[in-house]
């Protein structure tokens, strides 16, 4: 087998991994600030996918252009969810939060099943079958665009948290909720904003994902688990870690699917998770608490 072949597989795995990473970024943002694990994350991602599918079939919109619309809708959903339900669970034990979000995940998943049916839906774009030559690599145009989109959104998110006043306020909340309250920050409002941002980001990841895979409701629990694995592998609370973890998981999935058996690919992700938990429980870029 020529070396180029492996290089191609690796590159496409890494590009897919960027989209995974973006989804995990949304989870990481929510957990890092609100301290609630969003067990409905994959469900929100698939909702984003169906949003893009719907916009493509109704308006002929490219998923990349549909992404901002999807993000806005999911932002609103996340905001309302945090305000209405999740906020009163912030102080409650973890297993209660889990059950609440599990209930919400079940509702979203089955609402999608009822609305769109169990069959997969795909989005056709003019460049569906194009490939781009980069040096020795031959990359799918869709994968390249999805990966690039993920990088752009991640960069915007980093800039927002680093430089904007609101972003700094959210980070203050994450570091010390009590202190943030003392200096007069509206914690509940910032939590709602954060949950909205996390939901919006995973919505974009979903929209980008429609370029790579067909939408099925059954994908949702898989993506929830995948996002968790990535966040833990990358390091809790570390945004670059989420992207790195996503790329690592994307890479290992692609390699496992190619070298062994596609049905074994998620086994590799779990393998990576177990190894990381064993050797570096704080994650690749996480700080030891």
């Amino acid at each position, binding site marked *: 087998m020529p070396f180029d072949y492996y290089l191609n597989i690796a590159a496409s795995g890494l590009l897919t991994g960027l989209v995974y990473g973006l989804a995990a970024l949304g989870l990481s943002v929510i957990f890092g600030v609100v301290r609630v694990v969003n067990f409905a994350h994959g469900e929100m991602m698939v909702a984003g996918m169906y949003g893009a599918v719907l916009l493509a079939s109704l308006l002929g919109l490219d998923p990349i252009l549909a992404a901002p619309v999807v993000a806005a809708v999911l932002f609103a959903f996340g905001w309302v969810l945090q305000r209405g339900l999740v906020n009163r669970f912030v102080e409650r034990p*973890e*297993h209660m939060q889990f059950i609440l979000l599990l*209930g919400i995940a*079940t509702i979203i*998943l*089955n609402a*999608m099943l009822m609305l769109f049916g169990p069959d997969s839906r795909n989005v056709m774009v003019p460049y569906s079958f194009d490939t781009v030559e980069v040096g020795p690599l031959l990359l799918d145009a869709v994968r390249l665009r999805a990966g690039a989109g993920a990088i752009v959104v991640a960069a915007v998110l980093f800039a927002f948290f680093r430089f904007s006043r609101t972003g700094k306020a959210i980070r203050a909340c994450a570091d010390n909720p009590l202190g943030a309250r003392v200096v007069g920050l509206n914690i509940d409002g910032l939590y709602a904003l954060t949950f909205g941002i996390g939901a919006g980001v995973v919505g974009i990841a979903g929209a980008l994902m429609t370029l790579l895979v067909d939408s099925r409701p059954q994908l949702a629990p898989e993506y929830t688990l995948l996002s968790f694995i990535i966040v833990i592998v990358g390091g809790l609370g570390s945004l670059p870690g989420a992207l790195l973890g996503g790329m690592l998981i994307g890479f290992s999935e692609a390699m496992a699917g190619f070298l062994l058996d596609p*049905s074994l690919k998620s086994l590799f992700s779990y393998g990576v998770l177990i190894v990381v*938990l064993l050797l570096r429980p704080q994650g690749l870029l996480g700080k030891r608490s």
Partner: protein
Amino acid sequence: MTGRGIVLLALCGVLLLAAPMIADRYVLSVLTTVLWFAYVGQAWNVMMGFSGLLSLGHALYVGLGAYVSAALFVHFGIGPWAGMWVAMLAATAAGCFIGFLGFRFGVRGVHFALLTIAFAEVARIGFDHLQWFGGSGGFFIPVAGDAGNDLLNLRGSPELFYYVILALVLVALALSRVLLHSRLGYQWLAVREEPEAAEAVGVDLFRARIAAVAVSSALTALGGVFQAFYFNNLFPEQVFSMGRSIEIILPAIVGGIGTLIGPILGAFILTPLGELLTFLIEATGFDLPGLKQLFYGVALVVIVVYRPDGVWPWLADRLGLVRRPGEDA
């Protein structure tokens, strides 16, 4: 418990004992399912309810119990009463390994839960590829036909299985009660409420937690043995699925985590609710895939928002079945 509580409990016990004489086949199969969930919910409760360890991968222990006992029976002719010890051993070994990984490295709370999911998923994919266990095509125990009731090999009528699972529930209930009032049980509660304080007074956190995992996984495996011989077929996609793990934890959550009666009550609420929903959906002809699960999701949210401690503590208090806190239980 108050006198009233004991009378009510005894009444329920008598009803359950007499059920096969009154109920038809359908009701009996529903009751068997209810009791199965009550049993594994009880087993899960030992970890979450008593010691505060959130496991979301209990399907792993069910599956190991089921597959090990079924394989021993089919491949070597070893009956379930002997095979169950091996099955429990396998599940306990897996549980202790996960516990060792988690507790050693300070993997707590949600992350520990994730570790348990990861192992259940690894088992699911692994068993899909293990041909000795039938792989993804499923593993089957031959059905004996009309050979009559054979308690030794756990082959026979629905009534036989009903009484077996009823006995399991009662054993698990008694065991939970004994454990909860033992030295270990008090250690568990201390570890659940205040790990640091528990450690300060000399409780070995690691040992107490491992003990909880061991008891819980062994009990759960027994539920798996029952499942294997009751249904006679096993598919990794069902047995080890995350959905199954969630089904296992729901009765205890709905009924009341950490209580003895909670998981049983929860199972008696959830399974009939599911049957009722199926019936209503069929009766109205408004059959959409996912509708039933949607109601489940709504029920879950409603319960956790309005009865976060579960139904049993609230019900017991309203009906005066238990003494109020402060009085000696």
